[in-house]
């Protein structure tokens, strides 16, 4: 036990821990906005694009993050220019990113190892720069949250509100695009494609069902992300397991709360429906 605690509080793990904590907040909140817009699948597409961009950079002898940001930003730019975006566009992005990552990895010196790391993730090798960037990202997501939430919700329910009232929509659209790109790139670089996507996907999937109300569901979304992250971080060290799969498993397990909530609601409704008949 003491050996486990010694490892858990080892200074080597502090930076990875802070990085993951900040990313859990940023990615889960951004995932909630994407789910509200019915665009959550784009997170997986952009994460795959980030991995392919990172591998492209390795092949060209450039920093991984430069390539990841470049390709993900380009992919986001193309999506924004399309008149209508559908799941087919996201599917194309996912498959192209996956194939690009593995092909570039296969044909680059040391590329197979790096491409696997990008797909699977390796949080424990993150450094102070990662932690700093993740903390900045979390602040960039949480800080403007009330303003951004209101704007995105208004656009969701009243699509021509901004054009109809001559209010420029580019400030919130640009900020949201930048946040999504930064979350996917930093999440993929620090944790890997699928663990990052799990943070986008699972917390709001459960949070939107467990409680009523937008503000409360955002709070529950972040709590689920944090609990899942903390649990998997400790479990991975305690049982000497890879962190990424532990995170995905923990978040999937926590998401089962949505089914329990739905079941409780259905049971409650059935009881209420039966009450007048009994009376």
């Amino acid at each position, binding site marked *: 036990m003491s050996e486990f605690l010694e490892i858990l509080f080892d200074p080597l793990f502090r930076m990875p821990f802070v990085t993951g904590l900040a990313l859990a907040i940023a990615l889960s909140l951004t995932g909630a906005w994407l*789910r509200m817009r019915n665009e959550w699948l784009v997170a997986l597409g952009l994460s795959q694009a980030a991995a392919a961009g990172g591998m492209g950079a390795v092949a060209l002898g450039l920093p991984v993050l430069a390539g990841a940001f470049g390709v993900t930003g380009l992919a986001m730019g193309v999506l924004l220019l399309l008149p209508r975006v559908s799941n087919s566009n996201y599917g194309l992005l996912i498959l192209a990113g996956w194939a690009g990552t593995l092909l570039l990895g296969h044909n680059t010196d040391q590329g197979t190892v790096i491409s696997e790391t990008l797909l699977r993730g390796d949080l424990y090798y993150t450094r102070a720069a990662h932690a700093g960037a993740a903390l900045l990202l979390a602040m960039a997501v949480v800080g403007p949250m009330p303003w951004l939430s209101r704007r995105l919700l208004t656009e969701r329910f*009243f699509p*021509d509100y901004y054009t*109809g009232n001559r209010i420029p929509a580019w400030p919130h659209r640009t900020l949201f695009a930048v946040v999504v790109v930064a979350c996917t790139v930093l999440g993929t670089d620090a944790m890997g494609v699928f663990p990052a996507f799990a943070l986008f996907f699972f917390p709001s999937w459960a949070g*939107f069902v467990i409680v*009523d*109300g*937008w503000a409360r569901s955002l709070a529950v979304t972040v709590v689920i992300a944090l609990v899942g992250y903390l649990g998997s971080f400790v479990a991975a060290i305690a049982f000497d397991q890879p962190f990424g799969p532990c995170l995905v498993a923990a978040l999937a397990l926590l998401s089962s709360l949505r089914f329990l909530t739905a079941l409780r609601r259905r049971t409650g409704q059935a009881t209420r429906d039966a009450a007048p008949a009994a009376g």
Partner: protein
Amino acid sequence: MDEKELLRLETVTAGYARPVIRDVSFAVARGQVLGLGGPNGAGKSTLLRAITGCARVFAGQIVRAEGLTVAHHWQRPELPPELPLLGREMLPLLGAEPGRAHPMVAPLMDRPLNRLSGGQFQLLQAAACLAGAADLVLLDEPTNNLDGRALDALSDMLSGLDPARAVIVVSHEKEFLERHCTGLVEVAAG
């Protein structure tokens, strides 16, 4: 432009890739509820979208009062399958006060959208537009999916409209338009 006028369309031809509706002219003044009638496919919804800048104006012009604010209730608004937003969180998006919601709408304030019926969601959206802060409200087929009580609530909201504001209602229900509108414009099939 007349001081009371909020919007004027002068021989407007509007559409998307190509024109859908041609040579429409009318004006809307404060206190007015203007009905837009006509057959399906005549381009009534396109006209509303041209007013909000979502459809292209090919010819003519749309003149707006300075600083005009607009709320647009779309035809068949999509009910999100899993969104926990409450009615009281939705109304303020357009500047409406949940505490002053119509008695028929008030019970929807504490219900999440994902547990509303299509008709309830439709009524809530119309209520957000009508009780909001916009000078001009555009209602596109607001009677769709509404039962008798919800229709009465919509009628109440239209009757109680602030005289400083105006409404343009698109509906295929002629009786509803004749009952509530101070003016009617019939749009011919394109």
